[in-house]
């Protein structure tokens, strides 16, 4: 067992032990914090599929996160107000069922990633960063100026959506749902990285012209990675909205995109559990420092600066040593 897998196992154990401990000592707030960490981790794992393997520095992932959030918000809003979502030759009703909401969020995230990817993958490098950022802002301004679903004020959902056989209003049960989804996506990510597609994508990041020479299309590989990534981040957005029972344009804000990227670098780039470690550290710092100082983001900034300038491996790197072959 390598040192990295020991670190991963320890993080995994923490994600089980902390909420169970909080349950035993009757601290529902800690469970909610852990749920927040798990959902943010899921969103960052989504980004990491594009960023870690494909090298796609997307600064617009808040778009997919927000689309997931609004998928939940809009469906649940129509269900709670008993108004149909769409009336025409056939009627589409809202829903409070999580599996359907997730499916819509995943499809919405994937579709948006496909369209944005088609346009932005025409460019590379710094152009790509700026264009993804601009597309994220496009969604942000659209939701602010579109009044049907709350505009700038956002949408409140009164009761958390339901999952068959569970009572999602109990914090630990909702946590369990999010945790299982995170595990499933991490497993998928690990498989993807070693699958022919993952290897080809990795090669497309390092030497695109050679990938092209053996008959693969690097742009298409990257587009598929972006679509998978958008789908996962969309799912996380739906869960995040469900956790807060509230969606607003802030989910689309570019700070959100930046934070997702921060999780990856704080945790360690090129590591399977990097985004998980980063999100956990972020929520912990937010809780601890946020209680001490109103200016805690400045401390986060200083920490981030130190990690970028001096500690290339991030949190996982500190404990697990040098990264395996990652350029």
């Amino acid at each position, binding site marked *: 067992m390598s040192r990295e897998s020991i670190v991963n196992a320890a993080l995994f154990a923490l994600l089980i032990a902390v909420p169970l401990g909080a349950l035993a000592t009757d601290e529902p707030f800690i469970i909610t914090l852990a749920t927040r960490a798990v959902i943010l981790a899921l969103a960052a794992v989504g980004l990491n599929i594009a960023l870690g393997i494909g090298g796609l520095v997307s600064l617009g992932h808040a778009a997919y996160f927000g689309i997931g959030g609004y998928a939940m918000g809009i469906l649940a809003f129509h269900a709670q107000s008993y108004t149909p979502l769409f009336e025409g030759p056939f009627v589409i009703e809202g829903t409070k069922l999580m599996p359907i909401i997730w499916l819509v969020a995943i499809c919405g995230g994937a579709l948006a990633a496909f369209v944005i990817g088609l346009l932005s993958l025409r460019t590379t490098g710094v152009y790509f960063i700026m264009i993804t950022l*601009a597309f994220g802002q496009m969604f942000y*301004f659209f939701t602010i100026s579109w009044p049907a679903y709350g505009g700038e004020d956002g949408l409140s959902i009164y009761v958390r959506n339901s999952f068959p056989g569970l009572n999602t209003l109990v914090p630990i049960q909702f946590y369990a749902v999010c945790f299982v989804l995170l595990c499933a996506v991490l497993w998928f990510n690990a498989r993807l990285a070693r699958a022919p597609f993952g290897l080809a994508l990795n090669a497309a990041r390092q030497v695109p012209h050679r990938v092209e020479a053996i008959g693969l299309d690097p742009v298409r590989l990257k587009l598929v990675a972006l679509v998978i990534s958008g789908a996962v981040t969309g799912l996380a957005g739906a869960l995040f909205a469900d956790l807060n029972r509230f969606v607003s344009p802030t989910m689309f804000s570019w700070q959100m995109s930046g934070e997702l*990227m921060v999780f990856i670098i704080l945790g360690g780039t090129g590591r399977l559990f990097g985004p998980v470690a980063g999100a956990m550290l972020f929520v912990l710092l937010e809780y601890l420092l946020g209680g001490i100082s109103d200016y805690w983001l400045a401390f*986060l900034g200083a920490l981030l600066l130190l990690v970028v300038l001096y500690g290339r491996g991030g949190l996982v790197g500190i404990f697990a040593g040098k990264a395996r072959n990652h350029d």
Partner: protein
Amino acid sequence: MTTVLLVEQILNGLQFGIMLFLMAAGLTLVFGVMGLINLAHGSLYMIGAFAAAAVAAATGSFVLALAGAMAAAAMVGALVEYTVIRRLYARDHLDQVLATFALILIFSEGTRWIFGSFPLFLDIPSALAGPITLPGGIEYPRYRLVLIVIGLAIAAGLALFISRTRVGIQIRAGENDREMIAALGVDISRLYTLVFALGAALAGLAGALVGAIQSVQIGMGEPILILAFVVIVIGGIGSIRGALVGSLLVGLTDTLGGIFLPEAFKLFMEPAAATTVGSSLASMAIYILMAGVLIWRPTGLFGARA
């Protein structure tokens, strides 16, 4: 739709565009010469605005406030370049994005710590307040017209500086081949600090000038930073001329779109629905413009390299 309104809106669009140019020029220079993507450029804009508000409150002079804004932004820019940014030139774009994102957090919270969370106000000097009557009997705010003139003067000055002066030649040479000009005896790291401080001073000046028509507050730099990104993507990264054309395009599209798109939709829709659709579309207009330019030319209008 009268011609008076049209002229007013075109002037507003020009004024907005030319202020965007002051931001975009610094960004595009820093990217062109050093290959650095700097998210913290918006913080320098904010620092300029706050410095101007502080100097204006202390001295009551608007000219001193502008000088203070440029000096403060240039100094902070040089300091940041010396301590942080120069470690990032050889890094990949991901590290640059994250480190400058960290700088935004530090600057925003630092400014909040010093000045508090409430917006400050910077008054337009009385000599420039009030409207001016343009030929054709159109009334337009004198200050906004001055902004256009200042911006155009700076654009011309910058073009001369880059194309005619010795330092400008060194900057252009640095864009093409940094090893070669270092071998020719130019102190490249001092040149980098200078370019960064110059970009910072322009951003600070823009912050101070715009701060007098909007409020001076934390986070004021980020929306305009993102617009400046759109500008340089449209214009082509590294090109000053591209930045100017891109700024004016974005400024005019945003301003005219906000006014005329809802009106245009009213021609064939109910007024309420037309306002909704039109204003939603107008808020996205510049991004649609950017997507259009990229489909046509992936490296921007004047961009040479990807």
